[in-house]
Structure formats: C-alpha cells, structure tokens
C-alpha cells in the first residue's frame, strides 16, 4: 500500500482506462458520421464483454475472446440497424431499447449459466508486452509501449480511421450521407447500405471495447460496461468526430478516472465517489466550453427517408 505514486504508473493506468472508451468512441464516430446516433453501444459493449468471456472460457484463447466479443457487439448493433434502417424507427428510442436489451439479456444469460449468486469466472488475462526499441525509451517507453495488444490496436486504428475518413471515397460517401442523405442519394450513394456498414462497424468496435473489459480484468460481472457506452458518446462530441481528437478526449477521460488511484495511494479515507464523479463533471464542463461548439453531422438523428414510411 505504501507504493509511491509515479507519473509512469499514473499515465499507464490512464491509457488502460482510456482503451475501451477509445475503441467504442472511434466506432461510434463512424456511425455518427453517417448521420446515425447509436446510444445503444452500451448494449454492444456488455454483449461484447459476455461473448468474449464465454469464448475465452471455452477455448482458453484471448484471440477468440476478442473475435467473439466484437461479433457480440456487432449482433446488438445489427438489431439496432434492422429497426432504424429497416423500420425507420427513432434512433434515440431504439438505442435506449438495445441498451436495455443488451444489459438485460447478458444479465439473464449470465445468471442462467453461472447461477444467481454469480460464481467468479476466471479468464485468460490480456498481458502487456514490450515493443522492441520503443519500449526501452525512458518514461515514454513504459507508459506507451509496454501495454497490452488492445492498446496497440487503438494506436493503429487512429491513423487508419483518419485516412479512411478523409482520404478515401468510402470516407467521402460516409460523410456526405451524414451531412445530407438527399444529396448523397442524388449522387448515386446507397444511403442505407453506407449507414448499415457504419452501424455495424460501430457495434463491432464497441464489442471489442467490451472484450477488453472482460479480458483485461479476467472476469465478467453483470453491468460491467458501467455506462462506458454513454461516456463514449460524450467522448465523440468532445473529440469533434475526428479520430485524433477522439483519442485525446478518451485519454483525458482515462486520466481523470486514473486520478482515483492517485488519491487512493495518498490516503484511505478520501471520498472516492467524488473522484469517480470527476470525469463526468469534467466532460460536462468541457462540453460547455470550446469542445461543445463543434458542429455535428447535419443529418444526425434525423429519420431517412423523411417521407413515405
């Protein structure tokens, strides 16, 4: 307990806490860029966590855990897509429903499989490994390059997504659908298909975020998503729908959450709930300032087609 606080430990923890948020928020930003606000990614995250836990338990494999975690998240997003795109239902209500469905279904499945007292599941755990050369850098090495595979995945996703969004025709189509589906359709873009892919991508990445939660902690707990899907949506706004800024916003959130460890190491009777509250307060404050002024995709949350359904 006397372990002294160090900058390396703090930032290392901040990055670990930021990973699930970054994964979910990067995915959600794809969905939102297409003009769809999916507030059901909380459901995708918890489904991803349970599927990852079940797969990792069955095959004792981290990799299969991550694959099935992503698929679990994608499945919830598929339900969302069927309702929002197929039936043109309201995005916010449908997202609330898929969140409740995800939390309820995983809870029911977990209780049915492992009993209501919740026997502890022990899973293979994500291990951190050192990247050669970079990992040996002073200070930066241990913070950034002695992490688990999900952290490196986020490092790769940031530039990839940035490139896809701003330098490919897919990115252009995606953004045009989010700004004005009518114009995009005139130009020959298949709006519903673009949105379908965007929703599924968001779900798969939220599922990965859930897989990280389960495999990083080595267990599954009901409601372990703990509202991260909702925080990820705030992170997307903070990050102005841009992958680089989203990663920074997620890190900011991770750092605010990691503060609790700092204060815990300083003394035991400090009011920890206030530190748990801090990230949410800081996000509200950040949204009130410069970050909140960013313009969302113009067609966000609007039904499409607007008539005839």
């Amino acid at each position, binding site marked *: 307990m006397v372990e002294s606080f160090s900058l390396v430990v703090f930032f290392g923890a901040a990055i670990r806490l930021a990973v699930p948020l970054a994964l979910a928020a990067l995915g959600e930003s794809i969905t939102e860029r297409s003009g769809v606000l999916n507030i059901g990614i909380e459901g995708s995250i918890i489904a991803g966590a349970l599927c990852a836990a079940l797969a990792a338990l069955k095959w004792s494999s981290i990799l299969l855990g991550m694959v099935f975690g992503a698929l679990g998240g994608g499945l919830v997003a598929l339900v969302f897509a069927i309702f929002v795109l197929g039936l043109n239902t309201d995005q916010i209500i449908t997202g609330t429903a898929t969140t409740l469905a995800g939390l309820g279904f995983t809870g029911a499945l977990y209780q049915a499989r492992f009993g209501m007292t919740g026997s502890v599941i022990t899973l293979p755990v994500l291990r951190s490994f050192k990247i050669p050369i970079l990992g040996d850098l002073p200070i930066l090495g241990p913070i950034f390059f002695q992490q688990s595979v999900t952290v490196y995945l986020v490092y790769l996703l940031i530039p990839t997504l940035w490139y896809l969004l701003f330098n490919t025709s897919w990115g252009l189509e995606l953004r045009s659908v989010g700004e004005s589906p009518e114009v995009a359709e005139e130009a020959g873009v298949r709006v519903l298909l673009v949105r379908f892919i965007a929703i599924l991508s968001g779900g798969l990445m939220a599922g990965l975020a859930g897989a990280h939660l389960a495999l990083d902690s080595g267990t599954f707990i009901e409601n372990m998503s703990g509202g991260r899907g909702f925080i990820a949506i705030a992170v997307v706004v903070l990050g102005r729908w841009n992958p680089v800024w989203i990663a920074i916003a997620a890190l900011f959130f991770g750092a605010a959450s990691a503060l609790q460890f700092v204060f815990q190491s300083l003394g035991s009777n400090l009011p920890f709930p206030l530190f748990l509250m801090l990230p949410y307060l800081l996000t*509200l404050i950040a949204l009130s300032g410069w970050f909140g002024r960013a313009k969302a995709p113009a067609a966000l949350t609007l039904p499409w087609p607007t008539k005839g359904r």
Partner: protein
Amino acid sequence: MGMQDSNPWLALLVSLLAVLLTTLFTATALMLGGFSPVVALQVLIEGSMGSIDNFLGVTLVRAVPLILTGLAVAVAFKSGVWNIGAEGQFYAGAIAAVWVGLSLGDHPSFFSIPAVFLAAALAGSFWAFIPALMRIRLGVGEVVTTILMNFVAIHLVSYLVRWPLQEERGVFPNTDLIVESVRLPKIIAGTGLHLGFLVAVMLSLGLAGLFNHTVLGFNLRSLGGSQEASRVSGRSSISSLLVVTFLLSGCLAGLAGGIEITGRTFALYEGLSPGWGYTAIAVALLANLNFKAVLLTGIFFGALEGGSGAMQREVGIPAAWVSWIEALVLLSVLASDRLFRRLLGSKWQSKLRESGSDG
C-alpha cells in the same frame, strides 16, 4: 416523435400488439431456457395480482415511481426534449427529500410533507435545468448531457451516504430513517400502498388537462410537432418553452425520488432506483406518450417488476429477465407502430387521423 399524433384507437392497437409480440418472444425465450412459460406466467400473475396484498403492496407500490418518471419522460418527449436523465433527476429529488426530511425535525405532517415534496421537485428541476441551459445557451444536445448528469447523481448519492449523510453509527452506507411525521400516510391501512399513488394519479390527470385544455399546453404540444411552426406562430419564445419542458420533466422525476423516500424506503442508499429512469422510457412509449395511459402502463410494468421476485423464488427464473422483457416491450412498440402504419397504408391512416383527437 411521430408516435404521439396518431389516433387513440390505433395507439391502443399498437400497444396491444406490442404486448402480444413481447409475450410471444418471452415465451419462446423461456422455453429455450428450459422454463415452462405457462408456469412462469401463472407465478408472475400470482405474485403481482394474486391477492389484494400483492396487488396493492407490491404492484401498485412499484408502479408509483414508474408512473411518475414515465410522466416525466412523456412530458419531455411530447415537446421534443430528449430527457434521458430521469434517473439522475430521480436521485436528485431523493437526495433533497432525505436531506430536508432529516434536518426538519418533528413538525406536523401537513407542513413537513409538502416541504419535502417541494424540495424534491426543485432538486429534480435543478438537475434538468443544467442540460436545459447547455442546450439553449451553448447548443449542446441534451441526450449526452442528461445521461452524464445521471452518473453525477449516482456518484453523489454514493458519496453522501458514506460521508455527510451517513447513518449515526457510521457503519452502513445509508442515511438514517426520516422521522414518522415526514413519512407518507398509507391509503389503506395494513398494506404498503401509500399516498404517493394518489399523487401519481392526480398528476397524470392534471397533466392531461394541462396539455389538452390550456394555452401553455397547446404551445408545448406545438413545440414537439414542429419547432419551426411554433417559432412562426410566435405565441411564445421557443427557449422559454424548452426551459419549461425541461423543468417540468425534471420536477416530476424529482418528485418520484421524494415520494420513494417518504413513502417506501424512508432512507437513502445506493441503488435506490433499479434503473426506473430508463424503464420510464418504455412506460411512456407503451402509453404512446398519453398521460392517462401512463397510469396503466406504469401499473403494467409495476406488475412485471413485482411478479419477477416471485418468478425468481418459485421457478428460479433469474430476476435479470425483467429488464430484458422491458427492452422487448420497447422494441415491440417500435415494431408494431411501424407495422400498423405500413399495413394500414397512408390513405386509411389519414382518415383515422382526421377522425381522432389528440390524447
């Protein structure tokens, strides 16, 4: 919204179809899980409505917070305000109620209880006022901010019950019990049914009157229909109407928290609400945002939650099934609303709409 403007009969059909779809899905899922759906339904009905005690003391008592938060959501959604923050506003109301209730001391109930209600309503409104300001002054959408405020409230409760408001001995994470004079009287002695149910009934009738028969109600409704149209008609400024909607919605959810404290638990603790603020969305939508219908759907969900305890005890169906069934209700409402609209076609639908009035 698109769901509030339809004919009341159509709305009823949609709700009935939704309940039917949910029942079918749930029955199938139960069979796959190795349970007998018939036995499950029997136990559910027995546990929630099998006796006067179960109906009054379990179902109706659970329905109170669901009706009140359901009304909060209905008020907001009707006017096009996406308040997903009933959960946080509920807790804000509960905090204020317990705080005032504990510090008031012993006074006559006719003074104490209104004071506590007022505190709860104000706190809920305040919790909704922050997202309102952020939307109107800064253009930040309320979906994100109301959800963030939920988490702030939940952690605030967790802080209060462990530090400043912790019970006297300082052992358990909950507050002391409020004194007798701040507790709501029972409607029927010997049951758990408290005055809060009557408050919920009166509020739902009152809101229906407010929305259908007053100028403010008309303006609020037109706010939901089209913000442009409302701006053009120039009856009242959009932002002040938006603030009224946020405050009214927050006030109802806050009152739900205050009534839960003064009527049922008499103390504040973590997890006071098992997600009522979110279930409220299903309650309001199954009622097609109709305030009077919220009474019925609130009782329906109250029965579901009340009966789930019996299902777990007697048949071994995990309690988590309930939230999964609630989500199914929501999805079924969405699906059946769309299905009806398509089946009926636009012609008959417009005819129906002409003949129907607004709920």
